[in-house]
């Protein structure tokens, strides 16, 4: 038996007080002068009486009451001892350093357990420490002192990594282990999202080493975190200012109330808006809080949202970089001017600076100055033209293609160096009647604004078909189940498989025409910066020049020389280990923690034990808390004493 607060054990001696008082009373008996012992000598003495029994019981109850009271204060617990140090083993210790371990003192408990796992190894054993985040990863070593110092150096990371990747790594290391006994210890908070993928995989596997999970988490948890910051609309412009939406999630089973602070600052660090409000969430409720701001001026803005801190503070803060673009130069390429007329008219309504050009002029012009190119007539483009456009695409440019007649160049996809697995050229299909647009994927940010809108009112009399298109990239289908709009994979490319001529469609006269083209060209002309970077992501940015660039991060300021890839200067920044704003040149990027890591729900122990995974709360054994039991027992003895006194 062990004690969590052994200092109270010293007080156990106080339980002797009733016994001492009893003995003192016995030893120092009061002497009373009495008239005569005449009758007492004649009185029959009983050897046992109710009073003696009562006195003995009272003494026992009092002693036990005091003893058990202080005993419970010492917080006793039973530990089922597992001998760890009587055999040689190759042991991998996987430490969960994901940010959920920052809850209360979970990580401190975990590091203590890791050190125990090292120190209790038998001499001659070898061990390695790996962390979920990958911040620490050692090979199997026999110098356990050195390993212990590594364990001391580990801190909670901002990562939300799961166990699966690091477990694979552990298996690889153990495959090279020299000792016959191989074991894996995972010191974790038993977070469901971190362990579930591995458990599912372990169901299939047969040969695996012994796995023991050391539970360093709390059984009862409560947490509220910011899940997401988004903008509505996604691509704000001077004409369409954005409304930030803050999604907050309560992971607890109780209602919670938090203070929310929303701060938006401009490029020169001046605060534009600072809004505070109170948010009440029911059990497990997710709430989206819209924030009313009116920011129209082009530029980079930093949005910082914070909740009043709780036991897991890392997910109580979130960052968002909002960009309102300058008027954007767009090139529309045509074969005959009438084909570009409607699209040009639609885009002119917005902040785009439209330049139209025929193919001849295009061959002589400089494409670099345009943020996006619209290929309205593509039939006469040669292989070289396509190659040139492909190069423009690789350099970060955005291309919109309407297939309004058959593409003459059969190798156009190769020349364009498409990441899209498209084969061959589009084949025209003349419909006997007309087709309409159906099945619009409004969950894609590009098509989000068409939620609730009807695109099916427009009629198309002919359309084109492509081979081998992945469904995930199709933004909308025709009623014939063939794609209407396709989006490039990791490339700013949108292909419309029809033409927008008056003899082919009436779409230009529909309300959805202008927003669709505005949306497509906004997407294509924006810099290729992801809205949602997470801890550990690599920031990849195409720069206008190859000069040394200044990088500002939460850890400090650096300079970095861009590498040249595909003829354009490129920055790859990998050291995104801390949430906050990262400024690379003029671009501001927000790095956030993985919001889902804030869900502290635990995996059921049964699920683990079913997979023959042992669970211990303390290395060396499983503990049973006896303090409540002993306190209850002391109260029982107090009640018994009172009953005895009343009786």
């Amino acid at each position, binding site marked *: 038996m062990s004690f969590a607060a052994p200092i109270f054990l010293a007080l156990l001696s106080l339980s002797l007080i009733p016994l001492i008082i009893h003995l003192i009373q*016995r030893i120092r008996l009061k002497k*009373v*002068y009495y*008239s005569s012992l*005449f*009758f007492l*000598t004649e*009185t029959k003495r*009983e050897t046992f*009486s109710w009073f003696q029994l009562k006195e003995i019981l009272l003494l026992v109850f009092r002693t036990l009451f005091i003893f058990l009271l202080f005993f419970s204060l010492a917080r006793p617990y039973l530990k089922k001892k597992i001998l760890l140090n009587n055999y040689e083993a190759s042991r991998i210790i996987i430490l969960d350093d994901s940010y959920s371990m920052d809850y209360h003192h979970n990580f401190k408990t975990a590091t203590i357990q890791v050190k125990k796992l090292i120190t209790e190894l038998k001499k001659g054993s070898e061990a390695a420490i790996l962390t979920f985040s990958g911040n620490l990863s050692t090979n199997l070593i026999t110098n356990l002192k050195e390993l212990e110092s590594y364990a001391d150096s580990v801190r909670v990371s901002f990562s939300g990594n799961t166990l699966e990747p690091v477990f694979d790594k552990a298996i690889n290391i153990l495959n090279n282990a020299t000792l016959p006994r191989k074991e894996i210890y995972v010191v974790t908070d038993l977070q469901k999202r971190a362990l579930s993928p591995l458990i599912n995989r372990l169901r299939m596997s047969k040969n695996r080493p012994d796995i023991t999970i050391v539970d360093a988490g709390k059984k009862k948890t409560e947490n509220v975190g910011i899940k997401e910051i988004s903008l509505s609309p996604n691509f704000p412009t001077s004409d369409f200012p954005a409304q930030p939406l803050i999604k907050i999630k309560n992971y607890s089973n109780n209602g919670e109330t938090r203070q929310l602070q929303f701060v938006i600052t401009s490029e020169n660090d001046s605060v534009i808006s600072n809004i505070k409000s109170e948010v009440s969430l029911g059990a497990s409720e997710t709430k989206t809080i819209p924030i009313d701001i009116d920011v129209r001026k082009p530029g980079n803005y930093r949005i910082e949202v914070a909740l009043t801190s709780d036991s897991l503070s890392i997910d109580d803060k979130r960052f968002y970089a909002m960009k309102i673009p300058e008027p954007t130069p767009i090139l529309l390429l045509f074969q005959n001017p009438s084909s570009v007329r409607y699209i040009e008219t639609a885009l002119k309504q917005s902040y785009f600076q439209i330049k139209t050009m025929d193919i001849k002029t295009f061959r002589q012009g400089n494409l670099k100055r345009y943020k996006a190119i619209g290929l309205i007539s593509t039939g006469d483009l040669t292989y070289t033209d396509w190659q040139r456009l492909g190069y423009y695409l690789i350099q970060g440019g955005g291309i919109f293609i309407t297939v309004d007649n058959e593409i003459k160049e059969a190798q156009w996809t190769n020349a364009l160096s498409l990441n899209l697995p498209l084969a061959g050229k589009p084949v025209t299909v003349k419909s006997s009647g007309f087709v309409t647009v159906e099945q619009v994927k409004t969950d894609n940010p590009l098509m989000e604004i068409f939620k609730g809108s009807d695109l099916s009112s427009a009629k198309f009399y002919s359309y084109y078909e492509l081979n081998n298109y992945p469904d995930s990239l199709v933004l909308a289908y025709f009623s014939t189940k063939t794609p209407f709009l396709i989006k490039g994979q990791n490339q700013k490319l949108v292909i419309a498989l029809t033409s927008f001529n008056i003899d082919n469609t009436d779409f230009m006269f529909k309300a959805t025409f202008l927003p669709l083209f505005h949306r497509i060209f906004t997407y294509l002309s924006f810099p290729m910066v992801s809205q949602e970077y997470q801890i550990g992501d690599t920031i990849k940015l195409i720069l206008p020049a190859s000069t040394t660039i200044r990088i500002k991060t939460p850890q400090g300021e650096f300079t970095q020389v861009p590498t040249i890839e595909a003829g354009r200067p490129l920055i790859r920044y990998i050291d995104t280990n801390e949430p906050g704003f990262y400024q690379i040149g003029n671009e501001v990027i927000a790095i956030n923690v993985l919001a889902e890591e804030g869900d502290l729900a635990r995996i059921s122990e049964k699920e683990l034990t079913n997979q023959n995974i042992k669970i211990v709360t303390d290395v060396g054994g499983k503990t049973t808390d006896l303090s409540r039991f002993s306190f209850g027992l002391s109260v029982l003895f107090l009640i018994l004493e009172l009953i005895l006194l009343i009786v």
Partner: protein
Amino acid sequence: MESYQRFLNPEVLAKLKRIDLKARLVVEGFLTGLHRSPFKGFSQEFAEYRSYMPGDEPKRIDWKVYGKTDRFFIREYEEETNLKAYILLDASGSMSYSSDKVTKLEYASYLAASLAYLLIKQRDSVGVVTFTSKLNTYIPPRSSPAHLPVLLQAIDKIKPGGDTNLANTFHQLAEKIKRRGFVIIISDLFDDKEQVLSALRHFRHKKHEVLVFHILDKNELDFSFSQPLILHDLETSKEITLDPRVIRKDYQKTVNEFFSDFKRRCREHLIDYHQITTNTALDRALFDYLEKRARLG
């Protein structure tokens, strides 16, 4: 309570120093209360007539004299007495016990003094005998009022101590008192029951009237100690360790059986037995005496 009557309380008496004062106050208090009692007077001889005074009882008016003289005269009586009373006062060590404010001996002294005062006032002859295991003091009975201070002084001087041998003392006295008399015994009777009863029968055999005041402390009856203790015998200095709670019931049973048997045996031999605890008002004992005295005539 009228002023005199409060002196019937032993605790009040204990605060007074002079024994003669205590005796007088007890008797005056007792007699004040007696006006409403059935005891109106004793056997008396006519002494003289005197004029009727307001407040005299009309029944005491001699109507024959009124018929002759047309004036109210009251008949005055002189007490007739040839009773020799012996107050036997136990001064053994056990009599010094007290669980409260008044010891048994103090109580016995007040009772003895009060009885002496009352008897002298009635013109009876009173003597006092104090004893422990032997006779300590013997003052023969006299009826003169001048004899009262002698008796009271003897009672006042008693110091408790020593063992008891009641039977021997009583046998001795039974032989010593030649003329038929009235023997008042004030004792806790802590001795062998059979021997004591035998001695009391000896008194009866000699034609003495016997009145026993069995003086006890309340604690001697109910044994109300609450904690384990060592009891030290005041007479023998023996000690015994016990838990009173354990033996209380048996003790009470033994004591009650003892006293019931003693009382029954006394009644069989026409001996008046009265058990009195030290917290009892003294008039209770005096009533017992008067009852007995009235029967003697």
